[in-house]
């Protein structure tokens, strides 16, 4: 799969590129877009296609491997580990959504909205998705 298809990198964002890559792999795995056993693009391929430093890509892959989401296949590269999807703990999923929530909190603060007002606005949105 083309790296540009899987990843969108914003080099000038405050989020380090390695963390952007990690979060996007986690999201793809969790959403099933990267199924178990799927091979990930190589470090070289990502570095070339996205024009980022290869060390940055290696760092993201090593941390994902440490977290047990992907595994190294000798001579072939990295693939999504069996049961990776099931094992993505709530803590990690919360970690993925946290930056967005921080933005919401900052904006709410700017607009002078109270905690209750923000929660009141968010709750129906969650219900619409059938999560309640």
């Amino acid at each position, binding site marked *: 799969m083309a790296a540009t298809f899987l990843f969108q990198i914003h*080099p*000038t*964002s*405050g*989020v*380090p*590129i*390695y*963390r952007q890559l990690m979060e996007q792999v986690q999201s793809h795995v969790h959403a099933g877009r990267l199924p178990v056993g799927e091979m990930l693009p190589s470090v*070289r391929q990502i*570095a*070339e296609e996205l*024009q*980022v*430093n*290869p*060390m*940055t890509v290696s*760092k993201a892959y090593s941390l994902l491997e440490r977290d047990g989401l992907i595994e190294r296949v000798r001579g072939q590269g990295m693939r999504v580990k069996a049961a990776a999807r099931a094992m993505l703990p709530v803590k990690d999923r919360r970690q993925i959504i946290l*930056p967005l929530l*921080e933005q919401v*909190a*900052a904006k709410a*603060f700017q607009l002078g909205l109270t905690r209750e007002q923000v929660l009141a606005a968010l709750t129906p949105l969650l219900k619409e998705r059938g999560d309640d």
Partner: protein
Amino acid sequence: MTEASSDKSCSGQSVLEMRGVTKRFKDKTVLDQLDFSVSRGSVTGLLGKNGAGKTTLLKCALGLQTPQAGTISVLGEDSRVLSGAAKARLAYVPQEVSLYPWMKIRQVVAYTAAFYPLWNSRLIERLIKEWEINPEDEVGPLSTGQLQKLGILLALGHEPDFLVLDEPVASLDPAARRQFLATLLDIALNGERTILFSTHITSDLERVADRVAILKEGQIVYDDELALLKDSVKRLRINASNGLPNDLRSLPGMLHCEANGKTAVFSLRGFQTELPERLAREWSAEVSVEDLNLEEIFLELHHS
């Protein structure tokens, strides 16, 4: 606030070691007992304001200028008396490239190639095509940007182990900058080769560099992984309903703080993920955290 990294202190892994380097021009001290090292295989971006001494640092590193004090070794040799063998493994592209104006580009390339026992003419021919350089053009009428492109091209022909570039993208247009960055990444993919470049354009650095060094007031005030810098420096917004604590400004790592009544906005380094929660509890305050990009971090580091 020097943060020396522990992982690259020793000789075998570093291609450049500068220790206690002081360089003065008349009564102006540009480098002030500066310590700096560059490890093999890294791509390091050297950041600093105009006049911070980036060019002086690079020139001293390569023995093109002699400091009043300190020791410098590059590729394991004293930079003041580099052997021919070491020079053949080095390349330097100055900020302003000057070449013989009456030569054609084709002739400049051949002339430069003749100085090196090993010259990759296939690579150079490929880059001439990719970078849309016409070998029949004369050097004289070239623009600053075209000259810079040519200067970089000439520095790549002998495939140096250590490539030093002074503001390599300053005069390049966006397309040329992208081509240049792609080439740098190609070199970085090799893994053994080392690149050190100065810049004030932080967005380029963010893509291609894995390390960043910040030069301020004659010293390297930060030198570590770029990603760690972004993880370390954050901006916090605080709204404390019972009023801000008096010792707010003495919070460890504080860089720059603006407080007004019950609210404060401040940046700090050495951020830990549990900090916002702790501050919220201790100061009964609402705390939000903002990620900063390199440009913002650069500005925050220059506030203090």
